[in-house]
């Protein structure tokens, strides 16, 4: 039982990374009806920006001899990096997606893939091929709850992710901007005629999605303090799978499917040899999609979709 609970904690942490990234895919999808294939690499760049900000903050603190507590550095890192990465998201939208809004959707997928490759190359060029270690900002404290070892980092990661997801939910359901987003997701042809600017909404969606990806990147850096330029590929595609599994364009679905994918992966690795993890996880995904072809919360294929 303790073994099971231990893995449950790990799965929650692993799933929150997927869920945070999948949210970005799903939000962009609900507005523009296309997937931002550069999102995985935005997650990677976000982690690197977090690394840069954290290192910078530590250097400034030591230069000016300010006793900056670790948690404050982390909070500042998270907020600053989310802010900076949101600009990257808006830039990607402006360069790669806005010119292609009326083009076939597959073309936008190609630009997304290519922007992803460019981002990887830039990071590879700037940071070198060796992996960099994320500075450890808070000290690990391990609690033993009935045989289950829980670190404060894990609690922090799951709590922060859930808090941001809740904030996103409130933003979308309660604020005027969120209402505009929902309207745009409902119909992106008529709503712009009502005076809502699709460009601004799309840019905002990319900004929010990218900042959540940056959050995931930093939290990943806190949990596994090794960053490499290709980490976005694995995470990006798996989160993409989660976004589809949840039902495209469904925020709730993306969150749940992100956690579900985390659970599947951790528990498959728990029961079977870990080399079989991808095989079984993707087979389960395939089976789910065969029986629920539109994901958990998705709607059937509609004429609204362009090729």
């Amino acid at each position, binding site marked *: 039982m303790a073994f099971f609970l231990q893995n449950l904690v790990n799965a929650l942490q692993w799933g929150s990374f997927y869920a945070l990234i999948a949210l970005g895919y799903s939000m962009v999808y609900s507005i523009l009806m296309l997937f931002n294939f550069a999102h995985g690499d935005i997650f990677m760049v976000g982690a690197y920006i977090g690394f840069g900000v954290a290192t910078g903050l530590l250097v400034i603190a030591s230069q000016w001899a300010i006793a900056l507590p670790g948690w404050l550095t982390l909070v500042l890192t998270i907020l600053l990096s989310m802010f900076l990465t949101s600009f990257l998201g808006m830039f990607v939208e402006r360069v790669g997606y806005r010119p292609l809004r009326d083009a076939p959707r*597959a073309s936008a997928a190609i630009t997304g*893939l290519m922007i992803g490759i460019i981002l990887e190359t830039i990071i590879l060029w700037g940071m070198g091929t060796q992996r960099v270690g994320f500075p450890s900002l808070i000290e690990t404290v391990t609690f033993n709850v009935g045989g289950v070892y829980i670190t404060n980092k894990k609690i922090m990661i799951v709590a922060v992710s859930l808090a941001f997801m809740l904030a996103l939910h409130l933003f979308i359901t309660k604020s005027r901007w969120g209402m505009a987003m929902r309207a745009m997701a409902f119909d992106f042809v008529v709503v712009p005629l009502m005076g809502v600017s699709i460009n601004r909404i799309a840019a905002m969606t990319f900004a929010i999605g990218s900042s959540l990806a940056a959050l995931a990147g930093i939290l990943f850096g806190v949990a596994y303090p090794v960053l490499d330029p290709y980490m976005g590929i694995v995470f990006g595609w798996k989160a993409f799978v989660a976004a589809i599994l949840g039902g495209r364009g469904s925020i709730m679905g993306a969150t749940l499917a992100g956690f579900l994918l985390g659970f599947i992966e951790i528990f498959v690795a728990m029961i079977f040899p870990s080399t079989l993890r991808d095989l079984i996880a*993707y087979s389960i995904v395939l089976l789910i999609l065969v029986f629920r072809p539109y994901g958990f919360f998705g709607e059937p294929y509609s004429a609204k979709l362009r090729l």
Partner: protein
Amino acid sequence: MEATSSELSAPENGVINKIRVFFSRIPVLGWLCGALAAVLLEQVVGRQLALSIGLPKIPALFGFTIILKYPVLIPSAFLYVFIIYLLPVIVVARFCLTPANWLAGKLMNISMQGSVLIHLVLLYAVLQIWAEVSDYRDITLKFTLIAIMVTVSLNVINGYMGEFSCSHPGFMALGAYTTSVFTVSLFVNDSQFGQALLPSYMGPFFFPLGLILGGCVASLGALLVAIPSFRTRGDYLAIISLAFMFIVKSLIENLEFVGGPRGLSSQPNWANLPTVFAWTVICIWIINNFVRSIIGKALNAVRDDETAANAMTIDTRRTKMTAFMFAAFWAGVAGGLFAHVLRYVNPSTFGIQKLAEVLAMVYFGGLNSVYGSILGAVSLSMLSEALRPLELFKWIVIPLMLILVMIYRPTGLIAFKEFDVKKLIRPKPNPGDEV
């Protein structure tokens, strides 16, 4: 590509137009003769010329590598390309103009098949002589031909049927491993599969069989993607095919008898240039006939509107299944050839990287067009070899170029164009006579 310009000849004056009209009258036969002259010239005087104008050796890929690596040698490289390639091609094509047109017309009248065969033999001769200069050219050419096969077959699904399929690397992997297991276990003494079962001189005869076997296994795998595609399409199908790709890769990584993540090596060296060339030609020929047949038109109907196609008595399920299995077959054959050119396969070859590469070739070249796929595959594989000296920046230059193409021509460079062999090889009369 030169063949298309004859349609554009407008009665205008000006130097550029004159040049265009002049070139538009040269038939493909003339260009091939010119290219043959150029490669023969390179064979004979290439080395002396290269050394005498200060190049270390014959430029492997039209001087790109040298230009990027040693900027001092740019004039020499240009001179070399001009003297060896440009000049002979233009001069010979110009002087062959009348006889080539006459010959092309005669051949067309005698026998269409014979004419095509002669063109292919000429093309093969050009490629063979060009590739003989160095092993590097040989292997680049082989990979380019294989890329053409993969791209054309993916275009059947992504272009003609309009699905976004991500499973092609998976099909390639299935074909590559099946063919490799077939050849290695039957004809090679190696540690993985033990003694050879058949004498190795029989190998080259069995090789096509192995490739077809690989293609068949790939098409069986395609059923796994095709059957879910009855109920869903678009993004869900993209995910299903992506999951399929990961499953294949992960499965091979876990199969110890084919080497697992270490890969499988010691494939016999049977995929020489003639074999690869022949398979590529057969592949293009069959796929081109397929997409121009009734089933090919049904694919377009399914892409444009599935419900309407169904109402028009098209069996959409059968159409989708045929297209997937057919495309997967050729991807499998291409994978088998790939394994035997490289003489080593590894599951991580067939991952996201390969997928991005193949998709880029299809969408760069142009959807719904065999021409486009050939252009996309050739230009991207040549470019990625030619820009090798840029090292890391290659991966900024090529994606940027693709983004620009996507922005300005969202369906690719040559999209929705029929590959008509008859039109391609016909003689080009005077523009005045044509009207």
